[in-house]
């Protein structure tokens, strides 16, 4: 698929998404609108992992750590300030700083990719344990009680910037959440076209080569990781805005697993894929939850295994390949095969000393 076709498809997708966000409140009832608001906030989380894993090559099994920290940072700040504006900022800054510290520790410590997965998962468990146990009056930040395993109820939701008296209605919350999702998607697209984004992809492709050209892979990865942490944190704020609640289960293993599943299903190395995967899976979970006949873990586990074994590329890249195949069939005979004969030895070392 040529670059211009790709770009125009992306623009069309963005336009469609904008229209969908605009008409949604008219098209569905309030309950469904709330559902979609939840899904969209989680899709922000999906985008953050889709970005760092798919384009930075960073296998983070604990992306929910940043989501949860963002949610808690927002909740604490919103309760203290009574205004959501600085709280949203803190929900971005706190996880970003945490990602900076953790990323510095990991990337500058020559820790391999696989161990990174284990470490990030462990960090998530640490956070779960810590927040779960911080019950009682001793654990207060300002006027905000962290609440231990009970979590923090009745968190103020978003208000108009710097105007705590005008709290957003559910429709407005939907516009904010859906709009934010689109904005972040566009932002990430722009970053990927920027020199930084192109270097990040190069580091994912071949870290050694990138460093031999003078790029510091540690710094690039750290940058990608921090950006991912900031976006996930913002997603956390959107999540709290949806439910006015945050509890330690936000750090749970099952949410960590869900994020991974969104991406495996939607497609690694795309930005649309994680969003699509997130909506599909979360919709599925909500359906299973209302039926009670199937256990959602059972279904999610089976889906993940099937995708890893049979459809490892995920939905979006597979559909793209099918479309390309169809397109090639359609244009067949025009005789354009610019010596793209795939070299089977590609990527394989030939004669090592």
């Amino acid at each position, binding site marked *: 698929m040529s670059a211009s076709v790709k770009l125009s498809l992306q623009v069309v997708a963005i336009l469609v998404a904008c229209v969908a966000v605009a008409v949604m409140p008219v098209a569905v009832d309030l309950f469904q609108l709330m559902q979609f608001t939840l899904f969209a906030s989680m899709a922000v989380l999906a985008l953050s992992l889709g970005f760092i894993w798919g384009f930075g090559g960073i296998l983070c099994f604990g992306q929910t750590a940043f989501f949860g920290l963002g949610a808690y940072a927002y909740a604490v700040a919103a309760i203290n300030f009574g205004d959501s504006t600085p709280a949203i900022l803190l929900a971005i800054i706190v996880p970003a700083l945490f990602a900076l510290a953790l990323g510095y520790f990991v990337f500058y410590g020559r820790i391999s990719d696989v161990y990174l997965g284990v470490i990030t998962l462990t960090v998530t468990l640490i956070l779960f344990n810590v927040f779960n146990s911080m019950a009682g009056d001793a654990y207060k930040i300002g006027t905000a009680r962290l609440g231990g395993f009970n979590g923090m109820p009745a968190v103020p939701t978003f208000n108009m910037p710097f105007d705590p008296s005008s709290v957003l209605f559910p429709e407005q919350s939907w516009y904010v959440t859906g709009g934010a999702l689109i904005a972040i998607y566009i932002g990430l697209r722009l970053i990927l076209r920027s020199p930084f984004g192109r*270097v990040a992809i190069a580091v994912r*492709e071949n870290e050694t080569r990138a*460093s*031999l*050209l003078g790029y510091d892979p540690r710094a690039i990865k750290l940058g990608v990781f921090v950006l991912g942490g900031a976006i996930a944190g913002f997603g956390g704020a959107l999540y709290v805005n949806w439910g006015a609640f945050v509890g330690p289960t936000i750090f749970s293993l099952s949410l960590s697993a869900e994020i991974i599943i969104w991406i495996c299903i939607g497609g690694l190395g795309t930005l649309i894929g994680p969003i699509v995967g997130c909506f599909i899976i979360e919709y599925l979970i909500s359906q299973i939850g209302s039926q009670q006949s199937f256990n959602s873990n059972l279904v999610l586990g089976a889906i993940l295994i099937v995708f890893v074994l049979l459809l490892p590329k995920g939905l979006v890249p597979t559909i793209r390949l099918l479309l390309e195949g169809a397109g090639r069939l359609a244009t067949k005979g025009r005789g354009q095969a610019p010596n793209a*004969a*795939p*070299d089977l030895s590609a990527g394989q070392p030939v004669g090592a000393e």
Partner: protein
Amino acid sequence: MSTIPPLLETRGLTMRFGGVVANDDVNFALEEMELRCLIGPNGAGKSTFFKMLTGQLTPSEGRIRFRTYPIAGNLPHQIARLGIGIKTQIPNVFNGLSVRENIWLAAARAARRDASTIRAKAIVDDVLERIMLPHLAEAIVGQLSHGQRQWVEIGTVLAAEPELILLDEPAAGMTDEETVRTAEIIREINKNRALIVVEHDMEFIKMIAKKVTVFHQGRIMMEDSVDAVLADSRVRDVYLGKKVAA
């Protein structure tokens, strides 16, 4: 003799892997603008030597000096920024990216060093011409032939505009025509840059070399003009011995 300090100098450079000594007390010097060939049988330690020069390996012992900078044990990107570029033995490119993107990544880094961002595109177009791949600029590198990927890697090295270029078997897997072209490019680069070239192909070495360093069992066995080296009986034994063993 010369009072100009060497561009690159190693003193007592040694690399051990467990009990295996891959490089043993290597003392090497390269003048500014020099073109040097390294030869030696497989396992003689040439690639290990290159890896230490580019920071991919930290020497067990010894010093490396590039101009006035001690670089032994520096990280690859730090050394690259000082101006050493390498084409590794196995094509080491960004397989998932296009030819143009590969070259651009090198050029962008060079342009950043010289603080002019506009130049990057000009460098890319120029390099694409020199490696004769402008018609494949948008092709994905992983789908190219082995020889073409060699060219792409040489292109990234050129685009980075380093002060010193290391080429590990640049002609391997190339057609005769391409080999001649490679020799041409090497001579062209050598007009204003220093190079170290590792090769097995004696014909190729005759095309480009002035001075040759022979590695054997991790040490420098001899260092002389290309004719003297090729006439040397010990060198022939080393290569012959290798052939018998193979």
